[in-house]
């Protein structure tokens, strides 16, 4: 059985590929926020306190549009609502940890640490609690460090990044690249299709609620289809 320090190192290694994503993402936020008139201190504080890129981009956009405060907050929080699911998914593994550790895990619970950790905990059910905690913090260490540093660099670079680099599309390519390798089964394909079609069809619903509805429908579709296919396979096996 490997020691917690090796679990930590493994988590760090498994999260490395995300840096190619995190660095431009954070730099982009730093640059766009500076461009919107935020000071260096404000940009860094924003990134450090919220620590959730997609919602930061959403909030920044709405603030520039001078949307009402409540609309800004509701939209940005709606973008982050998916993390309730991350919290639920990790609670069987990390729930027994001490309160302070759980609070730190919660702050660092982002797409990258969630995806990497859940995959590892599913692969190795024999991991002990200290190993799981070490693995989680291993995944987030390079991601968080580079998130802060790249935000700073982006803010310093500011508007010197020319628009022809099409950096607006760094976010979609990143998210699609995260999802595509995970699509392995028919229920996966169905859930992804419902998510895309639902979000497009419900795009006009206010405050990001369309995405929330599409997400719930997509999850229900995937889980139901998986259940039905498993049952059918079990019957055929008899």
């Amino acid at each position, binding site marked *: 059985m490997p020691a917690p320090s090796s679990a930590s190192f493994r988590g760090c290694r498994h999260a490395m590929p995300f840096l190619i994503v995190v660095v431009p993402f954070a730099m982009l936020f730093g640059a766009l926020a500076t461009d919107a008139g935020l000071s260096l201190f404000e940009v860094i504080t924003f990134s450090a306190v919220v620590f959730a890129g997609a919602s930061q981009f959403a909030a920044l956009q709405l603030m520039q549009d001078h949307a009402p405060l409540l609309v800004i907050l509701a939209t940005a929080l709606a973008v982050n609502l998916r993390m309730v699911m991350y919290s639920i998914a990790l609670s069987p593994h990390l729930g027994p940890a001490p309160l302070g550790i759980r609070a730190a895990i919660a702050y660092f619970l982002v797409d990258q640490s969630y995806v990497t950790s859940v995959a590892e905990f599913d692969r190795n059910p024999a991991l002990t609690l200290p190993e799981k905690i070490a693995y989680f913090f291993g995944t987030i260490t390079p991601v968080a460090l580079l998130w802060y540093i790249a935000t700073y660099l982006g803010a310093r670079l500011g508007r010197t990044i020319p628009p022809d680099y*099409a950096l607006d599309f760094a976010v979609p390519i990143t*998210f699609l690249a995260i999802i*595509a390798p995970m699509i392995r089964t028919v229920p996966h394909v169905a859930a992804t299709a419902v998510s895309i079609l639902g979000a497009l069809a419900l795009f006009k619903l206010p405050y990001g609620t369309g995405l929330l509805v599409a*997400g719930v429908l997509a999850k229900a579709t995937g889980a139901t289809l998986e259940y039905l296919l498993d049952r059918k396979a079990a019957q055929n096996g008899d």
Partner: protein
Amino acid sequence: MAIDKSTLWTVIVVLGIGTFMIRFSFLGLLGNRTLPGWLLRTLRYTPMAVLPGLVAPAVLWPAATGGEVDPARLTAALATIAIGVITRNLMSAIIGGGATLYAMLWLFGQ
């Protein structure tokens, strides 16, 4: 017009606290509680249920082109998905998608 400073700081503080509470919800409040199988099965679909929907409008109607369908961005998105599905590798998908985007932007002379 500049962003109002009181709005900015309210957003930073409230969004920070709210996001923390979302992440802390089950880890913090429900601790050791075990969850039923159907719920765990549903949760496994969270990434592919949320992230594609999050970016779909930006793929089809990018703000950079004023909401008009852009062949370069659409092709790059499809290339990213195809490469990701075939290679099962995050890095290949990002590099392939980015290369497709720049190649298409160059071809279309933007």
